[in-house]
Protein backbone atom coordinates (compact mmCIF):
# COMPACT_ATOMS: atom_id res chain seq x y z
CA UNK A 1 0.00 0.00 0.00
CA UNK A 2 2.64 2.51 1.09
CA UNK A 3 4.90 2.07 -1.95
CA UNK A 4 1.91 2.33 -4.27
CA UNK A 5 0.76 5.60 -2.73
CA UNK A 6 4.28 7.01 -2.80
CA UNK A 7 4.59 6.08 -6.47
CA UNK A 8 1.31 7.88 -7.12
CA UNK A 9 2.36 10.98 -5.21
CA UNK A 10 5.73 11.27 -6.91
CA UNK A 11 4.24 10.57 -10.33
CA UNK A 12 1.65 13.29 -9.82
CA UNK A 13 4.22 15.83 -8.64
CA UNK A 14 6.63 14.88 -11.39
CA UNK A 15 3.83 15.34 -13.88
CA UNK A 16 3.35 18.88 -12.54
CA UNK A 17 7.03 19.73 -12.88
CA UNK A 18 6.77 19.01 -16.60
CA UNK A 19 5.10 22.38 -16.98
CA UNK A 20 8.46 23.98 -16.26
CA UNK A 21 11.39 24.37 -18.58
CA UNK A 22 14.20 21.77 -18.64
CA UNK A 23 16.55 24.42 -17.25
CA UNK A 24 14.44 24.72 -14.13
CA UNK A 25 14.17 20.98 -13.71
CA UNK A 26 17.88 20.36 -14.02
CA UNK A 27 18.40 20.83 -10.28
CA UNK A 28 16.54 17.56 -9.71
CA UNK A 29 19.53 15.61 -10.94
CA UNK A 30 22.63 17.39 -9.75
CA UNK A 31 24.47 17.19 -6.45
CA UNK A 32 26.81 20.12 -6.87
CA UNK A 33 25.88 23.68 -7.86
CA UNK A 34 28.94 23.91 -10.10
CA UNK A 35 27.23 21.49 -12.47
CA UNK A 36 24.76 24.26 -13.20
CA UNK A 37 27.49 26.10 -15.12
CA UNK A 38 27.16 23.55 -17.88
CA UNK A 39 23.38 23.41 -17.93
CA UNK A 40 23.21 22.13 -21.52
CA UNK A 41 25.26 19.13 -20.51
CA UNK A 42 22.98 18.31 -17.58
CA UNK A 43 19.89 18.56 -19.77
CA UNK A 44 21.52 16.33 -22.35
CA UNK A 45 22.86 13.83 -19.85
CA UNK A 46 19.61 13.35 -17.97
CA UNK A 47 17.40 13.52 -21.06
CA UNK A 48 15.25 16.35 -19.79
CA UNK A 49 13.50 16.57 -23.14
CA UNK A 50 12.59 12.86 -23.15
CA UNK A 51 8.97 11.72 -22.81
CA UNK A 52 7.68 12.20 -19.30
CA UNK A 53 7.43 8.51 -18.20
CA UNK A 54 11.03 7.90 -19.28
CA UNK A 55 12.18 10.90 -17.25
CA UNK A 56 10.08 9.80 -14.31
CA UNK A 57 11.66 6.37 -14.11
CA UNK A 58 15.12 7.86 -14.46
CA UNK A 59 14.38 10.25 -11.61
CA UNK A 60 12.82 7.43 -9.56
CA UNK A 61 15.93 5.27 -9.93
CA UNK A 62 18.00 8.09 -8.49
CA UNK A 63 15.47 8.90 -5.78
CA UNK A 64 15.42 5.31 -4.52
CA UNK A 65 19.18 5.58 -4.05
CA UNK A 66 18.62 8.75 -2.02
CA UNK A 67 19.65 11.03 -4.86
CA UNK A 68 17.09 13.83 -4.73
CA UNK A 69 18.98 16.63 -6.43
CA UNK A 70 20.31 19.97 -5.25
CA UNK A 71 18.22 22.52 -3.41
CA UNK A 72 19.19 25.98 -4.59
CA UNK A 73 17.21 27.73 -1.88
CA UNK A 74 19.03 25.83 0.85
CA UNK A 75 22.38 25.82 -0.97
CA UNK A 76 22.88 22.15 -0.34
CA UNK A 77 21.78 18.77 -1.65
CA UNK A 78 18.15 17.97 -0.83
CA UNK A 79 19.02 15.06 1.45
CA UNK A 80 21.34 17.27 3.49
CA UNK A 81 18.66 19.95 3.68
CA UNK A 82 16.17 17.43 5.04
CA UNK A 83 18.69 16.25 7.61
CA UNK A 84 19.41 19.83 8.62
CA UNK A 85 15.82 21.05 8.90
CA UNK A 86 13.80 18.06 10.02
CA UNK A 87 14.87 17.90 13.69
CA UNK A 88 13.75 21.47 14.39
CA UNK A 89 10.33 20.74 12.93
CA UNK A 90 9.90 17.51 14.86
CA UNK A 91 10.88 19.37 18.03
CA UNK A 92 8.25 22.00 17.31
CA UNK A 93 5.52 19.50 16.47
CA UNK A 94 6.23 17.43 19.58
CA UNK A 95 6.05 20.53 21.76
CA UNK A 96 2.76 21.48 20.14
CA UNK A 97 1.20 18.05 20.50
CA UNK A 98 2.14 17.92 24.17
CA UNK A 99 0.29 21.21 24.67
CA UNK A 100 -2.67 19.95 22.68
CA UNK A 101 -3.00 16.76 24.72
CA UNK A 102 -2.46 18.37 28.12
CA UNK A 103 -4.83 21.29 27.65
CA UNK A 104 -7.23 19.43 25.38
CA UNK A 105 -7.77 16.69 27.94
CA UNK A 106 -8.08 19.13 30.80
CA UNK A 107 -10.57 21.36 28.99
CA UNK A 108 -12.47 18.32 27.77
CA UNK A 109 -12.86 17.02 31.30
CA UNK A 110 -14.06 20.37 32.61
CA UNK A 111 -16.42 20.67 29.69
CA UNK A 112 -17.88 17.24 30.42
CA UNK A 113 -18.07 17.82 34.15
CA UNK A 114 -20.08 21.02 33.73
CA UNK A 115 -21.99 19.81 30.68
CA UNK A 116 -24.12 22.58 29.17
CA UNK A 117 -23.09 24.91 31.97
CA UNK A 118 -21.31 28.22 31.61
CA UNK A 119 -17.82 26.72 31.65
CA UNK A 120 -18.77 24.17 29.03
CA UNK A 121 -20.24 26.75 26.69
CA UNK A 122 -17.32 29.11 27.11
CA UNK A 123 -14.79 26.40 26.44
CA UNK A 124 -16.65 25.25 23.39
CA UNK A 125 -16.89 28.76 22.01
CA UNK A 126 -13.25 29.65 22.56
CA UNK A 127 -12.10 26.35 21.20
CA UNK A 128 -14.10 26.97 18.04
CA UNK A 129 -12.79 30.51 17.83
CA UNK A 130 -9.25 29.16 18.12
CA UNK A 131 -10.05 26.70 15.38
CA UNK A 132 -11.22 29.57 13.18
CA UNK A 133 -8.28 31.83 13.89
CA UNK A 134 -5.92 31.81 10.92
CA UNK A 135 -2.61 30.71 12.36
CA UNK A 136 -0.63 33.34 10.49
CA UNK A 137 -2.81 36.06 12.00
CA UNK A 138 -2.43 34.60 15.48
CA UNK A 139 1.31 34.22 15.00
CA UNK A 140 1.73 37.84 13.95
CA UNK A 141 -0.39 39.11 16.85
CA UNK A 142 1.58 37.02 19.34
CA UNK A 143 4.80 38.40 17.89
CA UNK A 144 3.42 41.92 18.16
CA UNK A 145 2.61 41.46 21.85
CA UNK A 146 5.28 39.12 23.18
CA UNK A 147 8.17 40.26 21.03
CA UNK A 148 7.33 43.83 20.00
CA UNK A 149 5.76 45.01 23.24
CA UNK A 150 7.02 42.74 26.00
CA UNK A 151 10.21 41.48 24.41
CA UNK A 152 9.86 38.06 26.02
CA UNK A 153 10.03 35.73 23.08
CA UNK A 154 11.95 36.35 19.88
CA UNK A 155 11.49 34.68 16.51
CA UNK A 156 14.01 32.16 15.21
CA UNK A 157 15.22 28.90 16.70
CA UNK A 158 17.72 30.33 19.19
CA UNK A 159 19.38 33.60 20.13
CA UNK A 160 22.61 34.97 18.75
CA UNK A 161 24.56 33.94 21.85
CA UNK A 162 23.21 30.42 21.67
CA UNK A 163 24.14 30.33 18.01
CA UNK A 164 27.76 31.07 18.92
CA UNK A 165 27.77 28.26 21.45
CA UNK A 166 26.05 25.73 19.20
CA UNK A 167 28.45 26.35 16.37
CA UNK A 168 31.40 26.63 18.70
CA UNK A 169 34.03 23.96 19.06
CA UNK A 170 32.86 22.58 22.40
CA UNK A 171 29.28 21.84 21.44
CA UNK A 172 28.85 18.34 20.08
CA UNK A 173 25.86 17.45 17.91
CA UNK A 174 24.58 14.01 18.88
CA UNK A 175 21.05 13.82 17.56
CA UNK A 176 20.37 17.03 15.68
CA UNK A 177 17.59 17.79 18.17
CA UNK A 178 18.90 20.86 19.98
CA UNK A 179 16.86 20.26 23.13
CA UNK A 180 18.41 16.82 23.54
CA UNK A 181 21.87 17.81 22.35
CA UNK A 182 22.07 20.73 24.75
CA UNK A 183 21.22 18.46 27.68
CA UNK A 184 23.79 15.94 26.56
CA UNK A 185 26.31 18.77 26.39
CA UNK A 186 25.10 19.83 29.83
CA UNK A 187 24.58 23.27 28.40
CA UNK A 188 21.43 24.52 30.11
CA UNK A 189 21.74 27.99 28.69
CA UNK A 190 21.22 26.65 25.19
CA UNK A 191 18.48 24.31 26.43
CA UNK A 192 16.41 27.09 27.93
CA UNK A 193 17.17 29.41 25.06
CA UNK A 194 15.85 26.89 22.54
CA UNK A 195 12.88 26.11 24.78
CA UNK A 196 12.04 29.79 25.02
CA UNK A 197 12.10 30.18 21.27
CA UNK A 198 9.78 27.22 20.99
CA UNK A 199 7.00 28.76 23.07
CA UNK A 200 5.33 31.08 20.56
CA UNK A 201 5.48 28.81 17.51
CA UNK A 202 4.24 25.84 19.54
CA UNK A 203 1.34 27.80 21.02
CA UNK A 204 0.41 29.15 17.59
CA UNK A 205 0.64 25.73 16.00
CA UNK A 206 -1.52 23.99 18.57
CA UNK A 207 -4.37 26.50 18.83
CA UNK A 208 -6.27 25.09 15.87
CA UNK A 209 -6.01 21.52 17.11
CA UNK A 210 -7.83 21.98 20.40
CA UNK A 211 -11.28 21.93 18.84
CA UNK A 212 -11.25 18.27 17.88
CA UNK A 213 -9.33 17.18 20.96
CA UNK A 214 -11.67 18.88 23.40
CA UNK A 215 -14.72 17.62 21.57
CA UNK A 216 -13.51 14.02 21.53
CA UNK A 217 -12.38 14.12 25.15
CA UNK A 218 -15.66 15.68 26.21
CA UNK A 219 -17.89 13.12 24.54
CA UNK A 220 -15.65 10.25 25.59
CA UNK A 221 -15.73 11.52 29.15
CA UNK A 222 -19.51 11.94 29.12
CA UNK A 223 -19.87 8.38 27.91
CA UNK A 224 -17.57 7.14 30.62
CA UNK A 225 -19.30 9.10 33.38
CA UNK A 226 -22.56 7.38 32.52
CA UNK A 227 -21.15 3.90 32.96
CA UNK A 228 -22.07 1.71 35.89
CA UNK A 229 -18.63 1.58 37.43
CA UNK A 230 -18.47 5.36 37.74
CA UNK A 231 -21.88 5.45 39.36
CA UNK A 232 -20.93 2.75 41.80
CA UNK A 233 -17.67 4.49 42.57
CA UNK A 234 -19.64 7.61 43.36
CA UNK A 235 -22.10 5.59 45.40
CA UNK A 236 -19.22 4.19 47.42
CA UNK A 237 -18.50 7.77 48.34
CA UNK A 238 -15.35 8.42 46.33
CA UNK A 239 -14.74 12.09 45.79
CA UNK A 240 -15.62 13.68 42.49
CA UNK A 241 -11.99 14.42 41.87
CA UNK A 242 -10.97 10.81 42.31
CA UNK A 243 -13.80 9.53 40.20
CA UNK A 244 -13.22 11.94 37.37
CA UNK A 245 -9.47 12.01 37.16
CA UNK A 246 -8.54 8.52 38.24
CA UNK A 247 -11.35 6.32 37.07
CA UNK A 248 -13.29 7.85 34.21
CA UNK A 249 -10.47 10.05 32.93
CA UNK A 250 -8.06 7.25 32.18
CA UNK A 251 -10.61 5.22 30.27
CA UNK A 252 -11.83 8.27 28.40
CA UNK A 253 -8.24 8.86 27.24
CA UNK A 254 -8.30 5.92 24.84
CA UNK A 255 -9.71 7.79 21.84
CA UNK A 256 -7.56 10.79 22.74
CA UNK A 257 -4.36 8.84 22.23
CA UNK A 258 -5.39 7.86 18.73
CA UNK A 259 -6.47 11.36 17.95
CA UNK A 260 -3.17 12.73 19.23
CA UNK A 261 -1.41 10.53 16.70
CA UNK A 262 -3.53 11.87 13.88
CA UNK A 263 -3.26 15.46 15.10
CA UNK A 264 0.50 15.19 15.29
CA UNK A 265 0.56 14.37 11.61
CA UNK A 266 -1.83 17.21 10.84
CA UNK A 267 0.37 19.67 12.67
CA UNK A 268 3.02 19.02 10.05
CA UNK A 269 0.83 20.85 7.54
CA UNK A 270 0.59 23.81 9.91
CA UNK A 271 4.34 24.02 10.43
CA UNK A 272 4.61 25.41 6.92
CA UNK A 273 2.93 28.63 7.99
CA UNK A 274 4.08 28.80 11.59
CA UNK A 275 7.73 28.36 10.69
CA UNK A 276 7.43 31.06 8.05
CA UNK A 277 5.81 33.52 10.45
CA UNK A 278 8.36 32.91 13.21
CA UNK A 279 11.29 32.56 10.88
CA UNK A 280 11.90 29.18 12.45
CA UNK A 281 14.41 27.17 10.42
CA UNK A 282 12.50 23.93 10.01
CA UNK A 283 11.39 21.84 7.10
CA UNK A 284 8.19 23.87 6.64
CA UNK A 285 9.93 27.17 6.12
CA UNK A 286 12.34 25.50 3.73
CA UNK A 287 9.37 24.06 1.83
CA UNK A 288 7.81 27.47 1.49
CA UNK A 289 11.07 28.96 0.27
CA UNK A 290 11.42 26.18 -2.27
CA UNK A 291 7.89 26.82 -3.50
CA UNK A 292 8.36 30.58 -3.63
CA UNK A 293 11.66 30.32 -5.52
CA UNK A 294 10.51 27.39 -7.68
CA UNK A 295 13.39 25.32 -6.39
CA UNK A 296 12.05 22.18 -8.04
CA UNK A 297 14.43 19.71 -6.44
CA UNK A 298 13.57 21.20 -3.08
CA UNK A 299 9.82 21.11 -3.72
CA UNK A 300 9.96 17.46 -4.80
CA UNK A 301 12.15 16.44 -1.89
CA UNK A 302 10.08 18.38 0.59
CA UNK A 303 6.74 16.97 -0.52
CA UNK A 304 8.16 13.49 -0.77
CA UNK A 305 9.42 13.69 2.78
CA UNK A 306 6.19 15.14 4.12
CA UNK A 307 4.23 12.41 2.35
CA UNK A 308 6.41 9.68 3.85
CA UNK A 309 6.02 11.17 7.33
CA UNK A 310 2.31 11.57 6.82
CA UNK A 311 1.67 8.04 5.61
CA UNK A 312 3.93 6.46 8.22
CA UNK A 313 2.31 8.58 10.89
CA UNK A 314 -1.16 7.48 9.90
CA UNK A 315 0.03 3.90 9.92
CA UNK A 316 1.48 4.35 13.40
CA UNK A 317 -1.76 5.91 14.61
CA UNK A 318 -3.66 2.88 13.32
CA UNK A 319 -1.32 0.51 15.09
CA UNK A 320 -1.45 2.53 18.27
CA UNK A 321 -5.21 2.49 18.12
CA UNK A 322 -5.47 -1.27 17.84
CA UNK A 323 -2.84 -1.69 20.51
CA UNK A 324 -4.66 0.30 23.16
CA UNK A 325 -8.28 -0.38 22.41
CA UNK A 326 -9.08 -3.88 23.62
CA UNK A 327 -12.39 -3.92 21.79
CA UNK A 328 -10.63 -3.78 18.48
CA UNK A 329 -7.89 -6.16 19.45
CA UNK A 330 -10.41 -8.89 20.16
CA UNK A 331 -11.85 -8.80 16.66
Amino acid at each position, binding site marked *: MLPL*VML*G*VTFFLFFLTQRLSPEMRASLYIQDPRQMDSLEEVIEKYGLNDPMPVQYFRWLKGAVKGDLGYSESANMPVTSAIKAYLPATVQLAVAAIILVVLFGVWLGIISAKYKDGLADNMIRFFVLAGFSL*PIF*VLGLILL*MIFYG*KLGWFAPGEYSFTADMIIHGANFKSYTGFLLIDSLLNLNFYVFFDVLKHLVLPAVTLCIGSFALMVRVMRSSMLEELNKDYVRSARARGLSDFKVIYEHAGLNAMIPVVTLAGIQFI*RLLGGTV*IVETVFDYPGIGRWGVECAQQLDIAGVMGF*SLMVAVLFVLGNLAADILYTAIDPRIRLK
Partner: protein
Amino acid sequence: MSIKDIISKAFGSKNAIAGLIIVVFFALIALFAPILAPSSGRDAYQMPQGGYSIEPQAPNAQHYFGTTENQYDLYYGIVWGSRMAFKVGITVVFFALLIGIIIGGAAGFAGGWTDEILMRLTDIIFAVPSMVLAMVIAAMLGRDLDNMMIALTVVSWPSYARLVRGGVLSVKEREFVLAARALGASSLRIFLKHIMPNAIYPVVIMASLDIGYIVLTAASLSFLGLGSPVGTADWGQLVALSRNWILGGHGNPFAYWYTIAVPGGALLLFVLAWNLLGDAFRDILDTSSRKA
Protein backbone atom coordinates in the same frame (compact mmCIF):
# COMPACT_ATOMS: atom_id res chain seq x y z
CA MET B 1 -34.49 13.15 8.10
CA SER B 2 -35.53 15.62 5.46
CA ILE B 3 -33.55 18.72 4.56
CA LYS B 4 -36.25 20.85 6.12
CA ASP B 5 -35.93 19.00 9.43
CA ILE B 6 -32.16 19.36 9.38
CA ILE B 7 -32.25 23.06 8.67
CA SER B 8 -34.92 23.82 11.25
CA LYS B 9 -33.05 21.76 13.84
CA ALA B 10 -29.69 23.33 13.05
CA PHE B 11 -31.02 26.83 13.50
CA GLY B 12 -32.39 25.88 16.87
CA SER B 13 -28.89 26.62 18.17
CA LYS B 14 -27.83 30.18 18.91
CA ASN B 15 -24.37 29.54 17.52
CA ALA B 16 -25.76 28.60 14.14
CA ILE B 17 -27.91 31.71 14.02
CA ALA B 18 -24.94 33.89 14.93
CA GLY B 19 -22.96 32.17 12.18
CA LEU B 20 -25.72 32.73 9.68
CA ILE B 21 -26.01 36.42 10.52
CA ILE B 22 -22.30 36.98 9.99
CA VAL B 23 -22.26 35.02 6.74
CA VAL B 24 -25.23 37.03 5.45
CA PHE B 25 -23.47 40.22 6.51
CA PHE B 26 -20.39 39.32 4.47
CA ALA B 27 -22.57 38.19 1.58
CA LEU B 28 -24.23 41.61 1.51
CA ILE B 29 -20.87 43.34 1.53
CA ALA B 30 -19.73 41.10 -1.31
CA LEU B 31 -22.92 41.71 -3.24
CA PHE B 32 -22.82 45.48 -2.89
CA ALA B 33 -19.05 45.88 -3.19
CA PRO B 34 -19.31 48.00 -6.36
CA ILE B 35 -21.50 50.46 -4.43
CA LEU B 36 -19.64 50.31 -1.10
CA ALA B 37 -16.24 50.78 -2.70
CA PRO B 38 -16.53 51.95 -6.30
CA SER B 39 -13.54 51.03 -8.38
CA SER B 40 -11.95 53.16 -11.01
CA GLY B 41 -9.73 50.58 -12.66
CA ARG B 42 -10.60 47.91 -15.16
CA ASP B 43 -10.24 45.03 -12.72
CA ALA B 44 -12.14 45.83 -9.54
CA TYR B 45 -10.36 43.05 -7.63
CA GLN B 46 -7.10 44.93 -8.16
CA MET B 47 -6.68 47.33 -5.24
CA PRO B 48 -5.95 50.94 -6.19
CA GLN B 49 -2.70 52.32 -4.82
CA GLY B 50 -2.91 55.76 -3.20
CA GLY B 51 0.69 56.83 -3.50
CA TYR B 52 4.08 55.23 -3.10
CA SER B 53 4.92 55.80 0.53
CA ILE B 54 5.91 52.59 2.26
CA GLU B 55 4.64 53.49 5.69
CA PRO B 56 1.02 52.49 6.44
CA GLN B 57 -1.44 55.26 7.36
CA ALA B 58 -3.67 55.03 10.40
CA PRO B 59 -7.46 55.11 9.89
CA ASN B 60 -8.59 58.60 8.85
CA ALA B 61 -11.43 60.29 7.02
CA GLN B 62 -10.06 59.32 3.63
CA HIS B 63 -9.12 55.78 4.52
CA TYR B 64 -11.68 54.46 7.03
CA PHE B 65 -9.55 51.46 7.99
CA GLY B 66 -6.19 53.00 7.16
CA THR B 67 -3.76 51.81 4.52
CA THR B 68 -1.21 49.02 4.27
CA GLU B 69 2.36 49.40 3.22
CA ASN B 70 2.55 50.71 -0.35
CA GLN B 71 -0.74 52.55 0.28
CA TYR B 72 -3.37 49.97 -0.52
CA ASP B 73 -6.64 51.14 1.05
CA LEU B 74 -7.71 48.62 3.72
CA TYR B 75 -11.40 49.49 3.44
CA TYR B 76 -11.35 48.77 -0.27
CA GLY B 77 -9.40 45.58 0.36
CA ILE B 78 -11.86 44.33 2.97
CA VAL B 79 -14.94 45.06 0.85
CA TRP B 80 -13.62 43.52 -2.34
CA GLY B 81 -11.87 40.85 -0.30
CA SER B 82 -15.32 39.69 0.87
CA ARG B 83 -16.36 39.32 -2.72
CA MET B 84 -13.12 37.52 -3.46
CA ALA B 85 -13.67 35.17 -0.53
CA PHE B 86 -17.10 34.14 -1.79
CA LYS B 87 -15.82 33.86 -5.33
CA VAL B 88 -12.98 31.55 -4.32
CA GLY B 89 -15.02 29.58 -1.78
CA ILE B 90 -18.01 28.96 -4.01
CA THR B 91 -15.98 28.19 -7.14
CA VAL B 92 -13.73 25.71 -5.36
CA VAL B 93 -16.55 23.99 -3.48
CA PHE B 94 -18.60 23.77 -6.67
CA PHE B 95 -15.91 22.12 -8.76
CA ALA B 96 -14.55 19.94 -5.96
CA LEU B 97 -18.07 18.75 -5.24
CA LEU B 98 -18.75 18.10 -8.92
CA ILE B 99 -15.61 15.99 -9.27
CA GLY B 100 -16.28 14.31 -5.93
CA ILE B 101 -19.82 13.40 -6.91
CA ILE B 102 -18.81 12.00 -10.29
CA ILE B 103 -15.85 10.01 -8.99
CA GLY B 104 -17.38 8.95 -5.68
CA GLY B 105 -20.64 8.07 -7.41
CA ALA B 106 -18.91 6.01 -10.06
CA ALA B 107 -16.76 4.22 -7.48
CA GLY B 108 -19.66 3.35 -5.22
CA PHE B 109 -22.05 2.36 -7.98
CA ALA B 110 -19.68 0.37 -10.17
CA GLY B 111 -17.74 -1.25 -7.32
CA GLY B 112 -14.98 -3.76 -8.12
CA TRP B 113 -11.92 -2.52 -9.94
CA THR B 114 -13.35 0.89 -10.78
CA ASP B 115 -13.90 1.47 -7.10
CA GLU B 116 -10.46 0.18 -6.19
CA ILE B 117 -8.65 2.42 -8.69
CA LEU B 118 -10.64 5.56 -7.92
CA MET B 119 -10.22 5.13 -4.19
CA ARG B 120 -6.45 4.61 -4.53
CA LEU B 121 -6.47 7.90 -6.43
CA THR B 122 -7.97 9.62 -3.40
CA ASP B 123 -5.36 7.91 -1.20
CA ILE B 124 -2.65 9.56 -3.24
CA ILE B 125 -4.09 13.02 -2.64
CA PHE B 126 -4.66 12.21 1.02
CA ALA B 127 -1.04 11.14 1.42
CA VAL B 128 0.12 14.77 1.56
CA PRO B 129 -1.34 17.33 3.98
CA SER B 130 -3.75 19.43 1.95
CA MET B 131 -2.04 22.73 2.83
CA VAL B 132 1.31 21.40 1.66
CA LEU B 133 -0.08 19.86 -1.51
CA ALA B 134 -2.03 22.99 -2.39
CA MET B 135 1.13 25.03 -1.83
CA VAL B 136 3.21 22.81 -4.09
CA ILE B 137 0.60 22.69 -6.87
CA ALA B 138 0.01 26.44 -6.72
CA ALA B 139 3.76 27.08 -6.86
CA MET B 140 4.30 24.88 -9.89
CA LEU B 141 1.31 26.25 -11.76
CA GLY B 142 2.41 29.81 -11.13
CA ARG B 143 1.08 32.69 -9.05
CA ASP B 144 -2.39 33.32 -10.38
CA LEU B 145 -5.92 33.35 -9.00
CA ASP B 146 -7.19 30.57 -11.27
CA ASN B 147 -4.19 28.40 -10.50
CA MET B 148 -4.79 28.86 -6.79
CA MET B 149 -8.38 27.75 -7.22
CA ILE B 150 -7.26 24.75 -9.25
CA ALA B 151 -4.82 23.80 -6.49
CA LEU B 152 -7.55 24.08 -3.86
CA THR B 153 -9.96 22.03 -5.95
CA VAL B 154 -7.39 19.28 -6.47
CA VAL B 155 -6.84 18.92 -2.72
CA SER B 156 -10.55 19.20 -1.81
CA TRP B 157 -12.41 16.74 -4.04
CA PRO B 158 -11.16 13.45 -2.53
CA SER B 159 -12.95 13.89 0.78
CA TYR B 160 -16.22 14.60 -1.03
CA ALA B 161 -15.66 11.63 -3.30
CA ARG B 162 -15.28 9.39 -0.26
CA LEU B 163 -18.39 10.75 1.39
CA VAL B 164 -20.43 10.36 -1.79
CA ARG B 165 -19.12 6.84 -2.24
CA GLY B 166 -20.14 5.93 1.29
CA GLY B 167 -23.58 7.38 0.69
CA VAL B 168 -23.96 5.48 -2.57
CA LEU B 169 -22.92 2.22 -0.94
CA SER B 170 -25.47 2.57 1.82
CA VAL B 171 -28.30 3.67 -0.49
CA LYS B 172 -27.49 0.92 -2.99
CA GLU B 173 -28.73 -1.72 -0.55
CA ARG B 174 -32.02 0.00 0.22
CA GLU B 175 -35.18 -1.76 -0.89
CA PHE B 176 -36.39 1.01 -3.18
CA VAL B 177 -33.34 0.40 -5.33
CA LEU B 178 -34.21 -3.29 -5.47
CA ALA B 179 -37.78 -2.36 -6.32
CA ALA B 180 -36.55 -0.20 -9.21
CA ARG B 181 -34.37 -3.04 -10.45
CA ALA B 182 -37.31 -5.40 -10.23
CA LEU B 183 -39.25 -2.95 -12.37
CA GLY B 184 -36.55 -3.26 -14.99
CA ALA B 185 -35.19 0.28 -14.65
CA SER B 186 -31.85 0.87 -16.38
CA SER B 187 -28.67 1.25 -14.35
CA LEU B 188 -28.43 4.88 -15.41
CA ARG B 189 -31.96 5.59 -14.25
CA ILE B 190 -31.38 3.83 -10.94
CA PHE B 191 -28.17 5.76 -10.43
CA LEU B 192 -29.57 9.19 -11.30
CA LYS B 193 -33.10 8.91 -9.95
CA HIS B 194 -32.78 6.65 -6.97
CA ILE B 195 -29.22 6.52 -5.68
CA MET B 196 -27.73 9.97 -6.23
CA PRO B 197 -30.58 12.10 -4.86
CA ASN B 198 -30.45 10.08 -1.67
CA ALA B 199 -26.69 9.82 -1.40
CA ILE B 200 -25.44 13.32 -2.02
CA TYR B 201 -27.47 15.81 -0.08
CA PRO B 202 -25.64 15.45 3.25
CA VAL B 203 -22.40 15.78 1.29
CA VAL B 204 -23.65 18.89 -0.46
CA ILE B 205 -24.50 20.48 2.89
CA MET B 206 -21.13 19.52 4.38
CA ALA B 207 -19.28 20.80 1.33
CA SER B 208 -21.04 24.16 1.35
CA LEU B 209 -20.02 24.59 4.96
CA ASP B 210 -16.41 24.02 3.91
CA ILE B 211 -16.37 27.45 2.25
CA GLY B 212 -14.85 28.90 5.42
CA TYR B 213 -12.07 26.34 5.44
CA ILE B 214 -11.38 26.82 1.74
CA VAL B 215 -11.14 30.59 2.16
CA LEU B 216 -8.76 30.07 5.09
CA THR B 217 -6.50 27.83 3.01
CA ALA B 218 -6.65 30.28 0.13
CA ALA B 219 -5.68 33.09 2.48
CA SER B 220 -2.78 31.00 3.77
CA LEU B 221 -1.53 30.49 0.23
CA SER B 222 -1.83 34.20 -0.50
CA PHE B 223 -0.06 34.97 2.75
CA LEU B 224 2.85 32.81 1.59
CA GLY B 225 2.84 34.66 -1.75
CA LEU B 226 1.63 31.60 -3.65
CA GLY B 227 -1.97 32.62 -4.20
CA SER B 228 -3.51 35.66 -5.79
CA PRO B 229 -1.28 38.08 -7.75
CA VAL B 230 0.25 41.12 -6.08
CA GLY B 231 -2.28 43.84 -5.28
CA THR B 232 -5.36 41.61 -5.40
CA ALA B 233 -8.04 42.43 -2.83
CA ASP B 234 -7.45 39.29 -0.82
CA TRP B 235 -7.44 39.12 2.97
CA GLY B 236 -4.47 36.74 3.11
CA GLN B 237 -2.41 39.11 1.07
CA LEU B 238 -3.41 42.08 3.21
CA VAL B 239 -2.23 40.19 6.29
CA ALA B 240 1.06 39.49 4.53
CA LEU B 241 1.46 43.23 3.92
CA SER B 242 1.42 43.79 7.69
CA ARG B 243 4.40 41.53 8.35
CA ASN B 244 6.97 44.31 8.26
CA TRP B 245 5.00 46.49 10.66
CA ILE B 246 3.99 44.27 13.55
CA LEU B 247 6.85 45.54 15.68
CA GLY B 248 5.47 49.05 15.45
CA GLY B 249 7.52 52.22 15.39
CA HIS B 250 7.81 55.73 16.80
CA GLY B 251 8.30 54.17 20.23
CA ASN B 252 4.92 52.47 20.07
CA PRO B 253 4.90 48.72 19.48
CA PHE B 254 1.25 48.85 18.47
CA ALA B 255 1.59 51.83 16.11
CA TYR B 256 0.43 49.84 13.09
CA TRP B 257 -2.09 47.58 14.83
CA TYR B 258 -4.71 48.14 12.10
CA THR B 259 -2.57 46.54 9.42
CA ILE B 260 -3.02 43.16 11.10
CA ALA B 261 -6.24 43.71 13.06
CA VAL B 262 -8.39 44.75 10.11
CA PRO B 263 -7.70 42.00 7.58
CA GLY B 264 -7.05 39.43 10.32
CA GLY B 265 -10.34 40.31 11.98
CA ALA B 266 -12.27 40.00 8.73
CA LEU B 267 -10.75 36.61 8.06
CA LEU B 268 -11.37 35.38 11.59
CA LEU B 269 -14.98 36.53 11.57
CA PHE B 270 -15.66 34.94 8.21
CA VAL B 271 -14.12 31.59 9.06
CA LEU B 272 -15.66 31.56 12.53
CA ALA B 273 -19.13 32.17 11.08
CA TRP B 274 -18.82 29.20 8.74
CA ASN B 275 -17.48 27.03 11.54
CA LEU B 276 -20.39 27.98 13.78
CA LEU B 277 -22.77 26.95 11.03
CA GLY B 278 -20.78 23.85 10.23
CA ASP B 279 -20.66 22.73 13.84
CA ALA B 280 -24.44 22.82 14.19
CA PHE B 281 -25.04 20.94 10.95
CA ARG B 282 -22.32 18.38 11.53
CA ASP B 283 -23.79 17.44 14.90
CA ILE B 284 -27.15 16.78 13.32
CA LEU B 285 -25.88 15.03 10.20
CA ASP B 286 -23.69 12.79 12.34
CA THR B 287 -26.52 11.66 14.56
CA SER B 288 -28.97 11.24 11.72
CA SER B 289 -26.57 9.11 9.73
CA ARG B 290 -25.89 7.00 12.80
CA LYS B 291 -29.57 6.31 13.24
CA ALA B 292 -30.13 5.41 9.61
